[in-house]
């Protein structure tokens, strides 16, 4: 059964297959005129949506910055000379220098790595937790569902910022790597609930489909049904939620770093730079505005991307 492999080939394809909820490959039945499913329509809509392309472009750009910041900024972000304090644009520094005499633009470019790393890894862990919890709760129902749903309720009731302050205070004296992973873990542990609910409800829908009953009659066990038949259908809505969550994780990381409990000094983070720029905004505002713009655009790009994909798949809006 190559069904799952083809589905998992690309995210988009998975997304298209999942929402359509149809087991067969469109067109394989020899009726090409009926090949355009809901998913096909959604992809056609998405292709013509400028918001989708703009946000995708921004996401790719930020990802490129995170992978190879040297391609975008010529100067070393850690090369700070106090005599250049708040100096205007010169050389490679197109936005001038900040209070410490560092290249404002280079710092913003190099800041993408920490943000994206935290966002992507938190979203990944969130996705794994949400898939496992949502799948178990949705598939088995009964007391498993009752217990897991209560757990979701409780975690959902915890205020994120306050909990993060308490949790991160424990690693306040640890090294950079420990701190980075602590931030990722804290965000993932507090942020998986929404995705888990989404997965749970799509699993409940998929569970009732005929092809699941057919698979069971053919003798497939619970594990195989969950992995091969239900997971591909639960994946699509989860990917949408996780894209949006990735944006909010980036915002949360910046907020924690801004407060001084997230990432700290040798690590370059937009949150830290915004805080530093804020203090000296009267002398020069560019060190505040540049990282602020980078952060806002990145968060917006992920949220709009998720929004656009969801809109394309939402049959109510058609």
């Amino acid at each position, binding site marked *: 059964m190559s069904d799952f492999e083809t589905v998992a080939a690309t995210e988009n394809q998975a997304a298209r297959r999942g929402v359509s909820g149809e087991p067969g490959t469109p067109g394989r039945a020899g009726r090409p005129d009926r090949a355009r499913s809901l998913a096909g329509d959604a992809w056609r809509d998405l292709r013509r949506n400028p918001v989708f392309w703009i946000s995708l472009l921004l996401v790719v750009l930020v990802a490129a910055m995170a992978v190879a910041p040297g391609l975008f900024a010529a100067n070393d972000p850690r090369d700070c000379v106090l005599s250049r304090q708040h100096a205007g644009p010169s050389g490679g520094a197109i936005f001038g220098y900040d209070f410490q005499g560092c290249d404002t633009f280079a710092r913003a470019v190099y800041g993408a790595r920490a943000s994206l790393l935290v966002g992507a890894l938190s979203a990944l862990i969130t996705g794994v937790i949400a898939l496992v919890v949502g799948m178990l709760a949705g598939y088995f129902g009964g007391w498993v569902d009752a217990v897991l749903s209560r757990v979701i309720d409780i975690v959902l009731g915890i205020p994120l910022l306050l909990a993060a302050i308490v949790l991160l*205070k*424990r690693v306040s004296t640890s090294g950079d790597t420990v701190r980075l992973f602590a931030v990722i873990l804290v965000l993932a542990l507090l942020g998986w609930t929404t995705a888990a609910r989404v997965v749970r409800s799509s699993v409940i829908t998929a569970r009732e489909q005929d092809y699941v009953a057919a698979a069971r009659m053919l003798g497939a066990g619970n594990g195989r049904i969950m992995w091969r038949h239900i997971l591909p259908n639960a994946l699509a809505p989860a990917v949408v939620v996780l894209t949006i969550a990735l944006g909010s994780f980036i915002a949360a990381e910046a907020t924690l770093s801004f407060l001084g409990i997230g990432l700290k000094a040798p690590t370059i983070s937009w949150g830290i730079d915004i805080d530093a720029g804020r203090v000296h905004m009267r002398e020069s505002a560019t060190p*505040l505005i540049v990282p602020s713009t980078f952060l806002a655009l990145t968060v917006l790009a992920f949220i709009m991307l998720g929004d656009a994909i969801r809109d394309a798949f939402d049959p109510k809006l058609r």
Partner: protein
Amino acid sequence: MLRFILRRLLQMVLAFFGTTLIVYALMFAGQGDPIQALAGERPVTAAQRAYLTEKYHLDATGVGGFFYRYLDYLGGLVQGDLGESLTGRQISDILAAAWPVTVKLAVIAMAVTVIFGVTAGVIAAIRRSGVFDHATLVLTLLVLGIPTIVLAPLAQYFLGVRWPVFPPTAGAQPSFYALLLPGIVLGSLSLATALRLTRTSVTENLRADYVRTARSKGLRRRRIVGVHVLRNSLIPVVTFLGVELGNLMGGAIITEGVFNVPGVGFNLFRGIRTEDGPLVVGIVSVLVVVYLLSNLVVDVLYAVLDPRIRYE
């Protein structure tokens, strides 16, 4: 109804013990040196160490010792005794001075949310797919997507420093005018959500049967929308606002910190900055209780507001 309230109260008590235990365990217990953890990165003198050991009964060990100290902390919390900050001030005194300011700020934020959010939401719903509708949707997406740590400093810079429309920071005794800009920034996030909620809910209700009945009775559109639809549409919005009030109290950390508003969030902001462990724990504990309480009030209000909602 009474049974529901009682059950909900019991749930809250359990949640209270659960969260305080977690806060307590994470902050103080099970680490190598609780006193150093309390003081953060700063060195602790021998005198301070001896004083703290005696004060928190740190010489008692084992599970019994842990629960002894936990109950100690809980008893203090219930009696309003939150201990002293590292600077030697009573935390309850700090909070007593800070609460009125935070409440004022939250009320301004809430007023902004209700006045602009609900009104714009109703207009957007009536003129669905119009220019206004699309404009508000884009705007709310922007507001929801831009984090507070970007919005607050930029608002402060552009409206306070560059073009001084508002005072850039609030002082020790902030006037209403000085609190207006932080209030708007604080309220903007809930404004966007309230707008979207109102819009969805009004749109759905406009299609309801009772609207058609009212229209066929010959009622004017203004009355249909203003009385019949609005009343039914505001239930989810009120719930959201209630939960949001609890969030505003805690969520004011960034806004109060940036605008120098001497409220609860500002003190927490300062406590984090100065590595003042006791101050952070004290304020977080109180905020968690406030959060739980506001959720309880909302749940009960929800049942009162909408007679269709029944709990058993």
